[in-house]
């Protein structure tokens, strides 16, 4: 049901916090995953059970320190589990749906609370901006609504090209895009829950058009960013050139919500080469790039998670060499996903392409 919560004195966050408190108070969920403001002034995801602490909840803070799909997975993959309300952005939910397909999470105990996302900043950028004390998200949402053609240049690269800023398939939706946040917030709730919270039906706002415009602008930005990275990948440079400065620190993999393997093959004894092996390889080409196997690492990771990449860009955030990891994975991921007509995160019923098959497909590949 479409409904509205009223914002008093322009305090949007207080109205949202109040709504979240009610979910705990009414026993709808046992705990909430939501971004919380720390006493030191930054924002971090937290698992909250005490309603008083929800006074620090800041689901609109334009920052994504980590993709919370991993955390939601840890809270739901095994029994016994509590009923969790998860306040998440679209890219986090899509990653979570991916994890469900890999048996690394369960949606049975999770109530998804999808927040419309206007984009996020790199953590240090956010912190510098937040110190100035502005309610950063206000500007962002206004921009997203008003002139989606000119994205905020300071946004993370992943967000500037994110064409899925809203997630429609969630039980609860916080429809910031299209709401006049100074006075009201539009919500979508199951009828039963709305009745329980005493919220009544209201008319839909202009969100759809706003989302469409935003998606169109982001899609255009995406296509030109893809064209740019593809020129590099398919040209002289190649993927080995794009990743020439990679030190194989594995940060990109560690923060990837899709990479869940307990022991990655790259950290396994398979890559514990004998000392003389390196020398043999060096002899083959005259020199061996060190650390070795960086291109193999990226190609293998593309092979393992490219079909499931949701484009959250956490990898780019984590890269000490500032390499365009996320852009490469999204651009190649898009081609892979199109090949298998697969959209990661769309719904949990759609099977992972590599665990299934049809008898009479790609007959030209295997002859």
């Amino acid at each position, binding site marked *: 049901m479409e409904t509205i919560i009223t914002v008093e004195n322009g305090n949007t966050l207080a109205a949202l916090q109040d709504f979240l408190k009610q979910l705990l108070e009414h026993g709808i969920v046992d705990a909430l995953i939501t971004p919380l403001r720390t006493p030191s002034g930054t924002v971090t995801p937290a698992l909250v059970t005490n309603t008083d602490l929800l006074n620090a909840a800041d689901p609109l803070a334009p920052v994504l320190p980590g993709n919370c799909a991993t955390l939601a997975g840890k809270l739901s993959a095994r029994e016994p589990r509590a009923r969790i309300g998860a306040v998440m952005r679209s890219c986090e939910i899509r990653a979570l749906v991916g994890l469900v397909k890999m048996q690394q999470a369960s949606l049975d105990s999770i109530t998804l609370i999808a927040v419309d996302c206007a984009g996020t900043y790199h953590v240090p950028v956010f912190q510098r901006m937040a110190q100035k004390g502005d309610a950063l998200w206000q500007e962002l949402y206004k921009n997203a609504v008003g002139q989606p053609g000119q994205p905020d240049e300071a946004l993370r690269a992943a967000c500037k090209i994110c064409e899925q800023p809203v997630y429609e398939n969630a039980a609860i939706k916080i429809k910031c895009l299209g709401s006049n946040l100074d006075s009201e917030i539009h919500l979508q709730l199951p009828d039963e829950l709305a009745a329980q919270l005493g919220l009544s039906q209201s008319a839909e706002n202009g969100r759809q058009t706003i989302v469409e415009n935003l998606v169109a602008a982001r899609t255009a930005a995406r296509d030109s960013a893809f064209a740019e990275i*593809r020129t590099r*990948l*398919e*040209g002289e*440079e*190649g*993927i*080995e050139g794009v990743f*020439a400065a990679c030190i194989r620190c594995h940060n990109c993999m560690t923060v990837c919500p899709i990479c869940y393997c307990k022991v990655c*093959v790259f950290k396994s004894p398979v890559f514990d080469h004998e000392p003389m092996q390196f020398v043999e*390889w060096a002899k*083959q*080409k*005259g*020199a*061996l*790039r060190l650390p070795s196997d*960086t*291109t*193999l690492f990226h*190609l*293998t990771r*593309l*092979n393992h998670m*490219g*079909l499931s990449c949701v484009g959250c860009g956490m990898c780019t955030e984590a890269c000490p060499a500032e390499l365009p990891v996320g852009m490469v994975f999204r*651009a*190649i991921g898009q*081609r*892979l996903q199109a*090949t*298998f007509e697969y959209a990661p995160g769309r719904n949990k019923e759609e099977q992972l*392409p*590599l*665990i*299934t*098959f*049809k*008898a009479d*497909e*790609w007959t030209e*590949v*295997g*002859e």
Partner: protein
Amino acid sequence: MTDTTFEPRIIAFLCNWCTYTGADLAGTSRLQYPPNVRIIRLMCSGAVDPIYVLKADLAGADGILIGGCHPGDCHYQEGNYKARRRVVALKEILKNAGFDDSRVWLRWISASEGSRFADTIREMTAAMKELGPNPLKKEWAV
């Protein structure tokens, strides 16, 4: 222009139950085929981890052949069908990362098809000669 002195090196990952036995048959039947292939035996084409195909390609192998049982004949029911999807994905990644995916071949060759195995090696050796040496053979910075 084709370099006539160039002898491509082909790495073949062959299923034990079909293509490997087919290769064996080609040998015992004294069928002639080019000596350009190095064979690695696996229990099923579905057991070929793409990481080893990639490793061979990046190390400079000129061609990589994966040989499995004909559709419907896999001893583990679906290994070859899954291998086919993996090869499709792998080729898509290689293409988009700036590599030549035509160096990777997937072929169904049964245990009784010794001559088909010999033909395939001939065909692949000729195609790789045409293509020229894998440029990654000389690229140290990968």
